[in-house]
């Protein structure tokens, strides 16, 4: 009996491994997506190991060294130094830490409720449950996101935590609507009907039958959204409503440096470039994922 269970476990594992291998094959057909993934992994590693790989980790936060202020890029300071003498490269790498953290936390907070509400609304399409959920979603979607974020962060104290909270609050309606679209068409699929007819619970139908079929668009949208969230975070920081100095945040850095353009261009250009690169990488990965999940023709 035990042996049989072991065989059962191993066979399930082998099947899973095969699925992953096939996904990677499809993903790797597009060299740009692979490039995006490599860049993301590098950025992720750099951000995670920031205190160990940057030349001047101490300069990331509150630090002043007026002797070295405003130095152009050189061998000692790859990206130069800012107006109070901090190493821009070090701060950009630390800035990635906060950007990625922001993206992950925001999507973590925003996606889960959006997905659950979307599933429920889709499954109950045509009833009052759907009406309540979807109309609430519409209200949230009707307000321009930046304005809402501005309002919320301005109301609370502007800091990283509130910034995350504000953006997360903007994000769930999009997922709710996306999942609603998918799940309301899944609802009429026969496997959902069959589960209902055999008497399965609603939780089983929502999370075991319908959710796995919604994952593809959710994951694709999440990767594409990471870029947008990071950009939005940077925008909020840029206008001073996000993380406050001396937190090393890419948006704040761009804003700070902008005051000294065009002379000390490196204080702005490098953080801005950093934002562009991470967003581009996320978009490339998103495209690759879309290929993985695309339905095969042949």
């Amino acid at each position, binding site marked *: 009996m035990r042996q049989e269970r072991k065989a*059962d476990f191993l066979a399930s594992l*082998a099947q899973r491994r095969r699925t992953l291998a096939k996904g990677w094959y499809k993903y790797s057909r597009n060299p740009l997506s692979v490039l995006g993934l490599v860049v993301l992994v590098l950025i992720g590693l750099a951000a995670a190991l920031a205190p160990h790989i940057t030349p001047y980790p101490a300069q990331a936060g509150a630090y002043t060294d007026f002797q070295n202020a405003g130095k152009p890029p050189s061998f000692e300071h790859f990206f130069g130094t800012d107006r109070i003498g901090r190493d821009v490269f070090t701060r950009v790498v630390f800035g990635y830490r906060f950007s990625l953290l922001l993206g992950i936390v925001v999507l973590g907070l925003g996606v889960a409720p959006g997905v659950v509400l979307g599933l429920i609304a889709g499954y109950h399409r045509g009833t009052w449950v759907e009406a309540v959920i979807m109309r609430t979603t519409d209200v949230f979607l009707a307000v321009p996101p930046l304005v809402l974020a501005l309002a919320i962060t301005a109301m609370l104290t502007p800091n990283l935590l509130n910034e995350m909270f504000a953006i997360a609050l903007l994000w769930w309606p999009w997922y709710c609507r996306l999942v609603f679209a998918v799940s309301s068409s899944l609802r009429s699929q*026969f*496997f959902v009907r069959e589960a*209902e007819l*055999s008497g399965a619970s609603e939780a089983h139908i929502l999370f*075991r039958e319908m959710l796995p079929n919604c994952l593809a668009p959710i994951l694709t949208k999440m990767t594409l959204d990471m870029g947008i969230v990071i950009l939005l975070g940077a925008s909020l920081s840029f206008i001073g409503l996000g993380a406050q100095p001396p937190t090393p945040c890419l948006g704040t850095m761009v804003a700070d440096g902008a005051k000294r353009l065009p002379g000390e261009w490196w204080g702005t250009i490098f953080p801005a470039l950093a934002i562009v690169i991470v967003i581009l990488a996320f978009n490339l990965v998103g495209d690759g994922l879309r290929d993985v999940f695309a339905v095969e023709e042949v």
Partner: protein
Amino acid sequence: MPESILSVEHLKKHFPTKQGLVRAIDDITFSVAPGDTLGLVGESGSGKTTTAQCVVGMYPPTSGEIRFKEEQIGTAFKRRPKYVKGDLRIVFQDPGSSLNPKRTIKQILSIPLKVHHIGTQHDRLARMKELLNMVELPADEYLYKYPQAIGGGEKQMVALARALATNPSFVLLDEPTSALDVSVQGKIINLLIRLQRELNLTYLFITHDLSLMRNVSSRVAIMYLGKLCEIAPTVEFFERPIHPYTKMLLSSIPVVSDAEEALKPRKAISKGEIPSPVNIPPGCSFHSRCLARNGRCAEDDPAMVEVAEGHFVRCHAALESELSGHGPA
């Protein structure tokens, strides 16, 4: 009437739509005896699938009764006793959409076992293997596959295994082979016939394929625009079709041999389109396409009449000529 396992009486199912009221099923009555196969045949829009869906509980009927083993089941699905959900199962037409593409066959088969609390965790593994063997699939190979990895016929076998997981006594087959190739269809049909014998199953077999019905069912019922036209034991049905619509259907079937060609009614050449179900013609709903119609047909709807033992027909013209001894044109 022999004792029946399923009986449907004056069943009606109407759907209100923007274009008007769709009378998907309009007063049908039939019953199925235990161990029998009733073939319910009709074209698209005839209401045959809606009938299946009402019986299995996907929609509550508008009016009428559905009785399953002395249990009234023509009510809301939630009020249907749980044992009925396991005893009365359905196999859908499209095996592609009836198996969740994101779950392995093992996960798919485990749902009915879990829901109906059949066996302990590792009894279930054994039971799932037994089910796959029952439908002639090698269990160890198929248990861990995803539905995309197997062929259409095999998917349908898995769907059948899932239906049988709860030991049902009645299985509704909603066009189980119409998405499959003939050679695969042959296999599934033979499997169905064997399982019926071994497990003492009763089938309600829904299809549009009359040639298939000739070989599978013990009784055949023809449906047109939500109403039954003719019910008869299979052999009698094909030897002596009476309703003009039945004749039109028979004459339209593409056949592969001269022997079959000879069985088709010659004069009943098909014409016209099936009217929209929101706009059903008055009187007999078939009269607009009927070759044998007379003055009464457009005015009053004929009633079902037994013309021979177990052979029911609902047609004015057929009955009149039946009485006078000639078949209708």
